[in-house]
């Protein structure tokens, strides 16, 4: 009985450690826990969750580009090795529905990551932050956080990311069309 109690104690302690460290563990794996934002759904007028994990990810290039195009090849190379792409997107009828605290729960998970870009509009109402999890010179996880007063988008890419190819794809889709005249780099 005493032995069982000891095991139980050890098990509880282990569980507690895992629970406490889970955000860190996830973040070190490149995967960000976004559950803390779930409460925003009740306030949002539009909500989109996308979770594309390997192996579905591997057929995405074919789905998006169809045949053997150059873009399909580039995208195939981009997603090779990726473990998943996760998106949360919320749109609100009015501003102030999400707070800095909400964003901080996400930022806390990437504290040890490198912030590779931070763009803030002059009035500070629009921000884009890009964080990368580095393994030597390689990126093994990416978080893009884009916030506007009435819109919040988070994109989490898990796995080795070829930034050059990502930019190429981003350019293809027009993801880089930021209004740079209105923004300044931090």
């Amino acid at each position, binding site marked *: 009985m005493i032995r069982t109690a000891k095991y139980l104690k050890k098990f509880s302690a282990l569980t507690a450690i895992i629970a406490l460290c889970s955000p860190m563990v996830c973040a070190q794996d490149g995967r960000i826990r976004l559950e803390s934002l779930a409460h925003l759904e009740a306030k949002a007028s539009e*909500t*989109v*969750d*996308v*979770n594309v*994990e390997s192996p*579905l990810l591997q057929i995405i290039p074919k789905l998006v580009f*169809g045949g053997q195009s150059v873009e399909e090849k580039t995208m195939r190379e981009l997603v090779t090795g990726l473990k998943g792409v996760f998106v949360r997107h919320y749109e609100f009828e009015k501003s102030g529905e999400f707070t800095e605290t909400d964003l901080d729960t996400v930022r806390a998970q990437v504290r040890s990551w490198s912030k590779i870009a931070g763009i803030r509009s002059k009035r500070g109402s629009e921000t884009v932050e890009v964080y990368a999890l580095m393994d030597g010179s390689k990126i093994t996880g990416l978080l893009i956080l884009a916030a506007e007063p009435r819109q919040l988008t988070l994109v989490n890419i898990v796995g080795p990311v070829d930034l050059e190819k990502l930019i190429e794809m981003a350019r293809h889709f027009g*993801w880089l*069309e930021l209004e740079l005249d209105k923004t300044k780099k931090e």
Partner: protein
Amino acid sequence: MSERKTVPRILILATVIILAQPPAFADDFDMIVKNIESHYRAKKRRIPFLGLAGFFVKIIRPAGVKSFKLAVFDEQDFRPGQRDFEFERAVKNSINSKKWKPMTRAISRSTGNRAYVYTHQSGKDMEMLTVTFSNRQAIVVQAKINPDSMARFMEKPEILGFSLAGSLKGSPSIFDPNQSLFNAGSSVSGSTGDSLATLRDENSPRIDTDSKSKPVLKVRSTEDDSDLNPVHGEERSTAKPNEEAIRLEARLVNLNVKAIDSSGDALKNLSKSDFRVFEEGVEQDIFYFEPVSAPINLVLLLDLSGSTRDKRGVMIEAAKKFIDSLSPQDKIAVAGFTRSYVVAVDFTSDKKLLKKAVDKMKKIQGGTAYYDAMWATLDLLERVKDSRQAIVVLTDGVDNSILESSYEPSDRSFDELLARVMESDATIYPIYLNPEETRLKQALADPELSDARRERVKRKLEPNLIAHRQVEQLAEETAGTVFMAEDESDLDGVYQKVAAELRLIYTLAYAPKNVDRDGKYRKLSVEVKRDRARVKARRGYYAK
């Protein structure tokens, strides 16, 4: 305490827990269907020969679909609310999470549309389990698809009776690069050539007024199982072999319909079964129905030509009140035109944004390319998948083409515009504001007017009368109504009448029994099964 006693206790407890589980479902598809039935108190529509269709799909594998299951719940209340959370929770708790991975979940409270997509890799095949809700309909589809063919499916999702690319009307698609969630905005280039350019909504598409687009009958696929109904089997026979051995697609004709009783009062509580639609005298099966309360997609098009500049202040205020009086779920775009055309705000329910755009129109002026502006507005509506479409256009209708040849005319002729309008789903509500016509008519009524002067007045009146007739024609052909505003002070009241009129429109759709695309004009008539009821609907369409 001995471990001998503990083990049986744990086993008993485990057995009790297992027995206490909710009843098992045949599979996850069945579980979702049952949950829709219980949470929304909905009844599944019986789809004739669905089992047979499934059998053929297994054998023929159209578009790489190896098997499918389909459940349709229509004309029931699926408006978003607390039930969604309960439904989601129930599904989340019951679904085989080892098998199904949630891929997409998209919820739009403004339109009421919701979509849930689960995927599962089954060897080389991909299984998809999709649940889509609109305010009045729910569809559950489970399909096993070959990934190579899935690419084709993504390009043409209607083959499975639902649309990922457009399931959330107006929402971006995760697979459509042009409407990607990540797309920073449609590229807008060029200038309209006058101060109108300053109004352009940077996120709105550039409408090419020289567009050569030829509208075709819209493919409405999300709502029905007509594609599986053998009544229309002859449509499938036209499909290409292999790719579409069974054509799971139906071309639907959309109709916006207004029904009134003998005293002229609108009939607002009709259901699908109250309507009968005839094409060339042959009764058609109505597959799709939306009640008068359903949201509408509306373009408010304002004539900003020089002739309206003096009245602009009142015009703007009246237009803003009109926007306020529309339903919160309606999607509205605001466009203006002179010789050029600009979309000031693309489709949105954000009334503040819309009114701000209208406000900016105060000082604009230029020529009048009315036909081209209407053409561009039809282009704008082409992007809207929902067939509940309307154009409210405030104009004097006098296109430069009608005036002296020295004025730069529209690129499109009125006849071209009329032909296109007849093929469009949009209902047109012109607000005809032409004080000059009234003034000239009054002048002609003066018995003391000299002959020479009378001739001059007549010449001046002529283009106004042509414009008036044309405005009426556009409304008539689309089952719309012309609203007359004697002068700008009438606008407030007129706009309120338009807003009320928009709430009287039912939307019906049917798959023509005559499947020939012979380009010929087909006469349409709609009846309501009520004594002495009268119906206003478009008169026909070209079967292209």
